[in-house]
């Protein structure tokens, strides 16, 4: 029996060594760090107030762990310097599994397909400007990410293409004004632990009608039946948001270059609720307002990639218009319009120097009265890696 065991062990070990020597294969398990970063100079003026500053580097590493040809974990961290402090954020961290050709499931914290800007276009080496359009980012109305589960995929319709995404997340929470009275009625999308039992449901449908995929039309919707804290008077305040997005990218020979047009319209509709305002003399007043907001942006860029000059080929001329309307009667009531013009120099496909001028007319916003005009000059260097 002992001899038999020794022979079996020798056989197993021998076959393992043989396999290691002769059957070498690349591992399907791969780990990779990608990401992007940017740094630059900002100069802004508003009336008599002027400020300028070199802005610290922002660094956003993306961790990709490919477990197999179908399974992957991805995560992105964001390091930034704001208000003389280092701020760290978890942009997304999710696990994804390709079920079949047409379906992929994701779970965790993921970028929401609400329009295309936040999901696809916001990274600094992709965004043609150093700033985001109005309505996105801090105090914006478009949700950027959520924690939940998502199903997505795409179909080839024999020329045209259709892509879809449907998801359920914790949904937003309502700012009831108890912490920040001037923001009562706003939706806060950082809802890491759900404040109630209502989940948000949403999705996006994208259609690329032409065989060359030059144009994409998208419709997104996002809805929840409750955004307030559980057992509070706001528990059953619902919200419905939708977005329309458009993209057109095509090389046009007579213009000797590539045209890139992007646009997105966001609309937010939150059920009317009653909030409390405390005046300086201590008097308390109840108020409510029609809680509807919207924002829009459109951007046009042109790269003369067919020009004779190598220098011209690397240039990009870009313009963007955006506006934002917050509800009338809210403490954060605002009507803003913004125009931005810029010239970019592409050092490579993933490294760009961006120079832009931006002017914003802002009426209201967080208790401000009257129109504020803000002009800004931005010079940034962004790199993807």
């Amino acid at each position, binding site marked *: 029996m002992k001899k038999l065991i020794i022979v079996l062990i020798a056989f197993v070990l021998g076959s393992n060594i043989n396999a290691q020597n002769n059957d070498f294969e690349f591992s399907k398990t791969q780990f990779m760090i990608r990401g992007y970063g940017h740094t630059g100079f900002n100069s802004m003026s508003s009336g008599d107030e002027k400020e300028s500053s070199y802005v610290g580097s922002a660094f956003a590493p993306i961790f990709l762990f490919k477990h197999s040809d179908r399974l*992957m974990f991805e995560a992105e961290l964001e390091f930034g310097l704001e208000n003389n402090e280092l701020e760290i954020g978890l942009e997304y961290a999710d696990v994804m599994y390709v079920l079949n050709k*047409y379906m*992929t499931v994701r779970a965790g914290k993921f970028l929401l397909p609400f329009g295309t800007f936040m999901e696809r276009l916001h990274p600094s*080496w992709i965004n043609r400007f150093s700033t985001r359009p109005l309505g996105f980012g801090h105090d914006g109305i478009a949700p950027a990410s959520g924690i939940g589960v998502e199903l997505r995929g795409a179909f080839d319709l024999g020329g045209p293409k259709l892509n879809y995404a449907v998801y359920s997340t914790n949904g937003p929470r309502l700012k009831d004004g108890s912490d920040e009275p001037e923001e009562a009625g706003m939706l806060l999308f950082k809802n890491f632990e759900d404040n109630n039992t209502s989940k948000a449901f949403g999705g996006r449908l994208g259609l690329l009608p032409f065989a060359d995929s030059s144009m994409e039309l998208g419709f997104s919707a996002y*809805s929840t039946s409750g955004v307030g804290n559980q057992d509070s008077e706001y528990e059953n305040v619902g919200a419905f948001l939708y977005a329309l997005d458009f993209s057109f990218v095509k090389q046009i020979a007579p213009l000797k270059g590539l045209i890139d047009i992007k646009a997105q319209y966001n609309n937010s509709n939150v059920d009317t609720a009653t909030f409390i305002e405390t005046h300086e003399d201590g008097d308390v007043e109840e108020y409510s307002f029609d809680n509807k907001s919207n924002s829009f942006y459109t951007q046009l860029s042109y790269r003369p990639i067919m020009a004779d000059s190598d220098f011209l080929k690397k240039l990009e001329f870009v313009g963007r218009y955006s506006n934002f309307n917050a509800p009338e009667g809210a403490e954060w009531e605002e009507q803003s319009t913004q125009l931005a013009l810029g010239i970019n120099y592409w050092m490579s496909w993933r490294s760009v120097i961006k120079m832009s001028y931006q002017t914003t007319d802002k009426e209201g916003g967080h208790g401000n009265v009257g129109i504020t005009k803000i002009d800004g000059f931005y010079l940034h260097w962004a790199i993807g890696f």
Partner: protein
Amino acid sequence: MKTIYKILAGVLTILVIGLTIIACSSSKNVHVNATDDEFKIEKSGAQYWGETCNRCHLAPSPVDYNDTDWETISLHMRVRANLTDIEINKIKEFLKSAN
């Protein structure tokens, strides 16, 4: 708002069920007309690379990553940009062949 919420939840549920049925339906027994395929002009990976990547960012240079990296990046981009199976496989093969 409750009505909109219910309608959206219902539409999404139907969409998920419908997509699951379509995506999981077998095509093994579908008769393929060979003559149709013969005259079908298929796009190359280079064409997909030029058309698809430029929709969001400048098309990447194939030489900047090795084959193993392109495998990982392709899976990431397939989901991030919601690309079709044909698009991503053709782009991946082109990038691996041209680096």
